[in-house]
């Protein structure tokens, strides 16, 4: 294994989950969810995963669930914050083979939506 690969792997191992806001669903429920849409932000950095989520959710109906695929470790704090700010529901996050799967439910509310 090259020095370069060793460096990159050490970095990945440090990326443990950091609980900022807990989702409303437990792990088991998240694993059995059937999302209505998928947002692929793999390979992108902040704020791109949030931008893609917000743009996709702008066209979602109340109750619909989006699953964000992302490998930017920041999504674990950005998406809950975005949900708190916009009044959408943060369901939770699963570690995936590559990065994370983050689940968000569109809620019907009176706040102005982006």
């Amino acid at each position, binding site marked *: 294994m090259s020095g370069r690969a060793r460096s990159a792997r050490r970095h990945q191992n440090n990326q443990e989950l950091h609980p900022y806001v807990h989702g409303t669903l437990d792990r088991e429920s998240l694993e059995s969810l059937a999302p209505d849409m998928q947002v692929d932000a793999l390979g992108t950095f902040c*704020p791109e995963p949030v931008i893609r989520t917000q743009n996709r959710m702008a066209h979602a109906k109340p109750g619909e669930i989006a699953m964000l695929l992302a490998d930017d470790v920041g999504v674990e704090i950005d998406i809950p914050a975005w949900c708190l700010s916009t009044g959408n529901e943060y369901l939770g996050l699963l570690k995936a083979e590559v990065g994370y799967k983050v689940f968000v439910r569109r809620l019907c509310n009176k706040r102005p939506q982006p």
Partner: protein
Amino acid sequence: MSEQIRALGLLSGGLDSTLAARVMQAQNVEVLGLHFSTGFCLADRHRILGNRSNPDKPYRNEALRAGADLKIPIEIIDIKDEYLPEVVLNPKFGYGSGMNPCIDCRIFMLQKTREIMEERGYHFVFTGEVLGQRPMSQRRPPLDDVAEESGLGRLLLRPLSARLLPESIPEERGWVDREKLFNISGRSRKKQMELANHFKIIDYPQPAGGCCSLPDENYARKLRDFLAHRGTDVTPDDMMLLKVGRHFRLSGDVKMVVSRDQGENTYLERFTQGRSEVWVDDFPSPLTLVEGQPTAIDLETACRITARYSDGRHERTVPVRWRSGESEGQLTVVPCQNDTELEALRI
């Protein structure tokens, strides 16, 4: 029933913009916070490279944090593609201390905000600007220029300094109460901190003199070098690469970027398309990207410099790997030990 007044606010998540939004909320104004992503945000750079002191704790996006705390929806607007050619490369009002076109930047963002205001039927726009706080963009003449050139004119409200400025339309029409706005000016943040205490806003980033890479002397030097050699044929990826690593110009159009740590290694991995890669297999090593068409001499220099920054720097010779498109190979080189040679190449 009176009409609900709705306003758009520029929200960076810093103390001033957070306070401005909170002041509007206190006057029962419905607020949507806009956060513009220019590609030059220092916070984005920190986020990309990770938190070196605490890797388990990623840097947060302050605009989203402020939105979450105040329950104000935040919309992030991606302006990277337009921002570079229209603002950074062609600023009507010139640059500040680095390559920072602060006045043009404000105008551009507020023009975009005005368009959104008109499309979606918002009443006015506000910002957290404070009179006299920044030497380039927050003096009185630039504040007037920004309002005028953005097309917002008197529809632009600066709640923190409003009572030091002419009455705006939101005040004149009674959408907001001028008496409940503020007369803050200057560089001190004391009054803002008192106001934050009043509103029980306790979690905000410490004022750090700006949130943009462009005023930074080192970044500006790399950007000027880039423009001098590549003209205006610039992509957002090129700009992203200027944010990290040690940069060396090997010859006219050939330049190398050497990562400084694990975070930058991971970051550079994403920019290998169209660039040559150089690294050391036998020791922990930086990843080096080479741009342009390197000659054999350029490639050898890139290998020597990469070896110098690897853990094999004190070895007599180091085998260095390289890959360029479909081709790859290995050169055994003497690590560069000559600081004068290195500094002559450093951008």
